[in-house]
């Protein structure tokens, strides 16, 4: 399952971030988004806009196609 499949408000654990581009991966790891961390989808913007997720007590916003590269369970 990937992050975008997650229902808003539900929690899951990140299992795989290796599918992302390097620069993006670095940014997300630096922000605390990495394997083993818990995520929760807060909301999604219309027309395929970005998603807002909560990781380790902070909110981060990223594009939907990039969120689709994050495997969760």
């Amino acid at each position, binding site marked *: 399952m990937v992050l975008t499949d997650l229902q808003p408000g539900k929690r899951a654990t990140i299992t795989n971030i*290796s599918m992302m*581009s390097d*620069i*993006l991966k*670095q*940014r*997300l*790891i*630096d*922000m*605390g988004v*990495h*394997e083993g961390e818990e995520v929760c989808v*807060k*909301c*999604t*913007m*219309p*027309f*395929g*806009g*970005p998603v*807002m997720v909560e990781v*380790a*007590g*902070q*909110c*981060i*916003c*990223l*594009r939907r196609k*990039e969120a689709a590269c994050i495997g969760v369970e």
Partner: protein
Amino acid sequence: MSQIALFGNPNTGKTSLFNNLTGSYEYVGNWSGVTVEKKVGILRSRDAYVVDLPGVYSLHPLSRDEGVATDFLLTESFSTILNIVDASQLKRNLHLTIQLLEFGKPLVIALNMIDVAERRGMKIDVKKLADRFGVPVVPVVARIGKGMDELTEKLRSVEQTKPFTLTYDDVIETAIATISSYLPDDIERSKRWLALQCLEGNERVYEYLRAKIALEPILAIRKQTEESIRQLPHGRSLRERLHHFRETFIEAVLEDVVVWTEKRSLTWTEKIDAIVTNKYLGMPIFLFFMYVMFMLTFDWLGSPLADLLDQFFSGPLTDTLSRLLTAMGASGFLQELVLNGIVSGVGGVLVFVPQIFILFFFISLLEDSGYMARVAMVMDRLMEAIGLNGKSFIPMIIGFGCNVPGVMAARTIEQPRERLLTILLLPLMSCSARLPVYALFVGAFFKAHQAAVVFSLYVLGIVVALLLAKLFSSTILKNEHSMFVIELPPYRMPQALTLWRSTWDKGKGFVRKAGTFIFGGSVAIWLLSYAGPKGLHVSMDDSFLAAIGGVLAPILAPLGFGTWQAGAALLTGFLAKEVVVSTMNIIYHVKDTDTLQGLMAHYFTPLSAFSFMAFVLLYVPCLATVATIRKETGSTKWTLFAIGYALAIAYIISFLIYEGGKWLGLS
């Protein structure tokens, strides 16, 4: 004098702390990437310099502003690192702390946002934290200046203790040892730190080393280490592996140091977010906010205040000055210069100070509340469609205040092409300097719909910028890979003092400009209007100014304002856009804004007035913006492009407005 450098994650309160330590008023705001360049101040006790730097997540920079911090570590000499750590985000913040400790300079940790952490139910054992890292830790609340004395004390007494070393696994340790042995002995930075940064793949460090040694062996070791690590069961990259070790260490420390007293309930940030970043309401709420801002600036509050000021300038002030000048026995020339040149020119712009301060107040409110990053998020979909990303919208909003800091703020955009495109389009954002021009014209021609007409100009600027972004990004500035990740900070109640300071700080620039550029411009314009080819004290139509403006008049005729007055005003507007108003005041030789507005009806129709306003909005960026664009892009070619396309688009749009309007039967 010793130098203390401030390092920390973005938006952790570095600048707030800097302001408190040094008594300065640097730019504070509630989003990541407020500070984009190095700022130096002097400690209140006057015995050390303090350097504020842009926030970074790690020492491996991805954007231009982050590069400033890493470059500082590599190239400047300083004595102490002050690491600001956000107590409510300890885990993430401490990654940077470890990297800074590995750097090996004396370090003090300022544990900031203690108030937020406590509200979330975190209790932090400061003493234990200090023990585990072997450095002083001082709890502070940078926002209100709590803990400053203790911090200053610790900064003064901190000494190099035994270096902090985090031990990684054998593969990595071997690589560190091999790389260190390659590094020359006289190198000024810690070898272990350099080796670790090489393993992280930090390009800035590569560059730094390339100047001293051949890099190939190091890159080879890195590659080899990367491969051995991929062989390991979980198959992570080297960088992730390093991160993993730090994370394990930090988790162990936090286990020991942090006690959670209560489970947190829904915070009010989440409640507000449910509304303002709502799927369907997000965009309308933003537009509504903008609308209220315009109504207050132009209709409800700003205009009445400006009128009062205008009455004061044209009445009591002019009378007093003229009596004073007569009493001093000033010559006719001097009297005219002061009253018709300076008072009309400078005063004509200063009357709009109330409106400008109201606008700045709203921009500061937007900056300090935490809404800024949400706007970026709400706008991202639209921005993506035109080849930019949501982050570009932040410089644009700042640009509504003044284009210069807007251009600077584009530094936080990671992709160079998106950054360049944002810089190029930024001058189309209607800055506060254009506001006096609008205020003058809408007061004369659109009395009933002032706010709506001005709002339409702001929208025009944005729409033109978006269309051009689409055009440029699909032709000359094709982007390889767009990205958008932004941190959404918790909302914070803006403090009255901070709001006032940042409003004043922006407004000050405007008032200062009135005393310099506009003053000088007014004197020059008045002299040009006073002198002519036939001598001094000529009638205005025979002056040099008329001659110069007259050259432009025929070119401007298709746009509806082919008079030498308009030509002269536009020409001088390149200095600063407010000067357009000064010039008009001087040329039409009037005492107050009301009379000027009455007189303008002879030279403009509502349609040509609108066309003129659109032209002022779009044509060439002002001098200061041009200089900043040159500095930030480092390219004369792109600077000229920014001027050229703006002129062209201004001409086309004004032409369409005027001819289209005539065709529709408007006048």
